[in-house]
């Protein structure tokens, strides 16, 4: 009977109820947008922010027991371990050496280009990237090197690689420090700071060594606005063989997702997982990311709260008008024996129906709007999170019930003696 009364009452005043439902739709859609996006935001934002480049560098520890301050490929592969991989967006191992092209000293970088593409998306490559899987000896060279030496894509490049390219521990220690600086500088260059270049001290004193020529086909010219413009890039496997450092790398640049765990925690995890390494956080980048995510979430929560307050006030106003309009009806119900709780039940049930209808429509609208936002901001759709449905409905129903508390209190106070005599 109660349901019938509520249903017919709503049907009888559908225009007024529609206003209340629309107010709830506004609030519910904001909740739905907030929840749908924020559940995806951390992940999507973290990935989006990964365009800033690596925020962590893994280096061999100074006290490493091995004679060579290098990281083995087995150790690199530890990053694929499930303990760590969930927190990592991507990583790229690098090996460095020096060489000459047409008598000009150059830094030779051995890298895995599929990985570099992912963690350093700002690299601009004219032509094509080195194909990691191909057996052909290809090379990419920095824009400045290409300009100085007059190379064009498709040219053969003879790279003179130092025959004895490994160094003793003390020497490597120095050069590793330089490499860290270079990596940091590369990351900073992504932000436009091109002042720090690959320091030339790594190149000093190498002219006296023996060089072995190796021919490569030039496939791409790299421009980053950073130190990469002065470097040349060959495939990691090939570099390892040519540098006589098979299955070894100097460092790993890692792009850590900061949405799940703080980057410092991930750094410690990495150090535990790969003993003998030091995971150095590039804190400027990671702090900036944290700030951006926090601010966006705060802004969204603020807008949602304000919308909910607006919706609540609108519902309260509608319910108050409804109670005023139905004073006689309430008086009559009381006269024929309805207790206060039965009267409250009718209004709360009506409010819940408004909340559910508004919540359901709002959820759908919010989900669709979240897709539009996701597509335009993150260039990807927001995933469907089933938990958002009950949360949205519960919040909206609670909102409507709380907003109805004062009007229902007024209904309960209605004196049948007064209303039934028409005052």
């Amino acid at each position, binding site marked *: *009977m109660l349901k019938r009364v509520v249903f017919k009452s709503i*049907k009888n005043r559908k225009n007024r109820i529609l206003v209340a439902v629309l107010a709830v739709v506004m609030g519910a859609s904001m909740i739905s947008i907030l929840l749908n996006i924020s559940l995806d935001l951390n992940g999507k934002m973290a990935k989006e922010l990964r365009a800033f480049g690596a925020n962590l560098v893994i280096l061999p520890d100074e006290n490493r027991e091995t004679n060579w301050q290098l990281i083995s490929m087995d150790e690199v592969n530890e990053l694929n371990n499930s303990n760590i991989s969930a927190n990592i967006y991507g990583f790229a191992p690098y090996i460095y050496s020096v060489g000459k092209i047409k008598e000009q000293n150059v830094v030779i970088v051995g890298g895995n280009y599929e990985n570099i593409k992912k963690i350093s998306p700002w690299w601009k490559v004219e032509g094509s990237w080195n194909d990691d899987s191909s057996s052909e000896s290809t090379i990419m060279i920095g824009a400045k090197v290409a300009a100085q030496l007059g190379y064009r894509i498709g040219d053969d490049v003879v790279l003179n690689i130092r025959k004895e390219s490994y160094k003793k521990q003390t020497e490597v220690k120095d050069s590793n420090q330089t490499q860290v600086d270079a990596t940091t500088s590369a990351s900073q260059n992504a932000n436009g700071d091109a002042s720090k270049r690959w320091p030339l001290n790594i190149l000093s004193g190498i002219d006296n060594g023996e060089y072995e020529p190796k021919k490569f086909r030039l496939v791409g010219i790299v421009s980053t606005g950073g130190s990469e413009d002065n470097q040349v890039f060959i495939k990691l496997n090939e570099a390892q063989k040519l540098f006589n450092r098979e299955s070894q790398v100097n460092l790993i640049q890692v792009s850590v997702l900061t949405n799940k765990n703080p980057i410092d925690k991930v750094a410690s995890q990495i150090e535990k997982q790969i003993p003998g390494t030091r995971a150095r956080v590039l804190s400027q980048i990671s702090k900036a990311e944290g700030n951006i995510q926090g601010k966006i979430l705060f802004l969204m929560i603020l807008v949602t709260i304000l919308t909910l307050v607006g919706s609540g006030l609108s519902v309260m106003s509608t319910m108050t008008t409804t109670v005023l309009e139905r004073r006689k009806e309430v008086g009559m119900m009381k*006269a024929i024996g309805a207790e206060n709780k039965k009267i409250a039940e009718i209004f709360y049930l009506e409010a819940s129906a408004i909340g559910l209808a508004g919540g359901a429509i709002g959820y759908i609208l919010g989900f669709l709007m979240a897709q539009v936002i996701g597509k335009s901001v993150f260039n990807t759709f927001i995933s469907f999170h089933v938990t958002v449905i009950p949360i949205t409905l519960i919040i909206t129903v609670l909102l409507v019930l709380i907003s109805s508390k004062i009007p229902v209190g007024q209904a309960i106070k209605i004196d049948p003696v007064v209303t039934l005599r028409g005052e």
Partner: protein
Amino acid sequence: MDKNDMIVTTNLSKSYDDKTHVLKDLNIVIRKGEWVNIMGPSGSGKTTLLNILSCLDRPTNGSIIINGTEVTKLSQNEMAKFRRENIGLVFQQYHLIPYLTALENVMLAQHFHSMVDEEEAKKALELVGLGHRLEHIPAHLSGGEQQRVSIARALINQPSLILADEPTGNLDRTNGKIILDLFKKLHKNGHTIVIVTHDPEIGMMGDRLIKLMDGRTVDERESA
């Protein structure tokens, strides 16, 4: 108090402030199965008396015992419970819920009382001659028909006492007669009926007439 008494008021008074004394020391006894009409000019306190007898209002002083219960001592919710279990109310303006059908208006009283029984509600409407108007909303019923729905609603929970405030006040003669015939039928079936009215014709009906003036009983006699 006699066990045959339905209503006993003792020194019943109602005042809204120190100056406005609407009822003054009323002592009334209405027996079970009796039909009593209350008449009096406007402002004599008859509607206030009916409100107090209906347990919608409380007296300032004095006591009222209805069907053996001292109602002035009941809480708000106990009064509501007492009302739905013992009293059937008929209003001059019918006070039906406009968006519910005749049948649903009757069933609503069942809902507040206990359980809804659609068949019982239909029977009550058939009893007042509205078996063919079950699914009509009040706006599609004549005044007389709406009042009959109101009577069916008052009767549905089998109250021991029926209180009516100007039940024919808004009706034409023909419809008024139908309503009064219904009251006669209810009286014949043993219901205790108290009607507040201006209508001298109704005053002539029933068992007894109580006349009020300025909140006091000025005349009380058996009907002709």
